[in-house]
């Protein structure tokens, strides 16, 4: 029941994001200087922000950016994790020890501080779409450590399994063993890691956005929509600014529901 509800919520949000250009009543960057900071009305369902932009339209486009790029960052993370994990698991010995030590070291870094450095090093006039790419690429590149450890353990387990010995005994070559037998066996592990990392990236983007260091304006994302909340007056006087926060929490609960067996939260928080 809860599983079905989670899938439905995610599907609805995905549809809202994909069809944002058709569902949104206004372009996300359209400013109406005559009507800033309006409350909800038939014309503006979630009101307008202080630049007179329609909040509902920005929410829909923000959904599109946050929910499209989180899987992209998760894929990037998985790619790095597979490279490190498989290399460590297959090579063994000092290569494995070195990679594991590097992974531990990487995992214990104050990543939010380093992300701040990267973001601070970008020029002020960085194009909005470039900032989207950079934000999610840097998130993807720092979140691979836990997944790499899991992949390495899975490689170890699979390496000692009978099917590989059998394949070798039947004369399968190195490439055939790896591509046809080994990698398909990693699929369930990778799928689980994908679902675990996705909410972390949505969370991380939200945190960077709340600090004003995420996706650059005028592009909306859930993170920079939440930035409005830092003006505390808004929350008490205009509770509808919480709409992106509610969507974010519901999405994360749904994603967690789909990946509830494993927990690897260190990087995002």
């Amino acid at each position, binding site marked *: 029941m809860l599983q079905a509800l989670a899938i439905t919520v995610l599907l609805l949000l995905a549809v809202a994001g994909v069809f944002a250009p058709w569902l949104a009543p206004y372009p996300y960057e359209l400013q109406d200087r005559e009507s800033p900071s309006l409350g909800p009305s038939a014309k503006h369902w979630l009101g307008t922000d202080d630049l007179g932009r329609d909040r509902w339209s920005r929410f829909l486009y923000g959904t599109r950016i946050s929910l499209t790029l989180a899987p992209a960052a998760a894929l990037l993370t998985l790619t790095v994790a597979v490279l490190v994990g498989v290399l460590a698991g297959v090579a063994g010995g000092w290569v494995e020890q070195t990679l594991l030590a590097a992974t531990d070291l990487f995992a214990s870094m104050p990543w939010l501080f380093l992300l701040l450095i990267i973001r601070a090093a970008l020029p002020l006039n960085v194009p909005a779409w470039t900032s989207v790419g950079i934000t999610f690429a840097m998130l993807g590149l720092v979140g691979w450590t836990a997944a790499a450890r899991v992949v390495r353990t899975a490689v170890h387990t699979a390496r000692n399994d009978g099917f590989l010995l059998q394949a070798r005994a039947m004369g399968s070559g190195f490439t055939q063993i790896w591509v046809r037998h080994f990698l398909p066996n990693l699929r369930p592990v990778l799928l689980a890691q994908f679902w675990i990392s996705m909410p972390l990236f949505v969370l991380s983007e939200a945190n960077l956005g709340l600090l004003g260091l995420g996706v650059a304006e005028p592009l909306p994302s859930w993170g920079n929509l939440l930035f409005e*909340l830092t003006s505390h007056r808004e929350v008490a006087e205009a509770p509808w600014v919480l709409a992106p926060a509610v969507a974010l929490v519901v999405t994360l609960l749904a994603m967690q529901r789909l990946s509830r067996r494993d927990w690897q939260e260190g990087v995002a928080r």
Partner: protein
Amino acid sequence: MRVAARLLVRLPVTLLFVGLFGWLLVRLAPGFGVDEREIDSRFSAESIAALQAEQGATAETPLSYARRFLQGDFGTSQTFGNIPIAQLIQERWALTTTSVVVALMAAWVLSIVWAGLGALWRPLDWSGSVVSFSLLALPSGLVAVGVFLIGAPVALGIAAAVFPVAFRYTRQLVFDAMSQPCIFAAAARGVSRISVLVRHARALAGPQLISLIGASAAMAVGAAIPMEAICDSPGLGQLAWKAALARDLPTLMPLILLIATVIQVANIAAEARA
């Protein structure tokens, strides 16, 4: 001895990695080495050439930066009114350290007690899971907004960020420990459940818990940034945030090197205790 060896290997590697990474970013950042006097029309071509030559001569190498860093000379921050960065860090260090330490203690004590009692009484376990599940779906920044609105201390927000992870790991360790044969043997001999938990399960799960507490230091320090930034608490997190917004990389660099050092020392100390 092993702790000292680990410190000797891990600390320089961390500092080298973080330092080189930061130094590279500072060098590649737009506007690096540009002196606004170069576009002043009153300066002649020769003067501008002399300025550029002067900058070339004073440009820092990673080695000279490291030497300066080790001597405690972090330079001055232009964003914060030409104040020495060491002074900025010194003024804010205590506040963040207190918040982080209090938050870590609160989160772990609560997790251990809740997970331990949860192993004895199912409804507590269930409620702990629901709370941690819900807190995991909240970005630290959003928690910070809530903390500010209710006027709670920053440490509470950091604890709320650490608790869900701490609770889940503790719960897993307690449940693993409680399913060991020695625990069943103790229970079969008539030892009470509380006694089994306190005397036997604690001994099994304790060492791993200590190393996890060390590992969660990085998480707590990370959570301090949004908490202090949003709650307007003048600690290191707020300093880092303001420096990042102002693109003040020279201030960010020593801050990150110091925090990386402290986190590595905490990790190694926790591993040694474990």
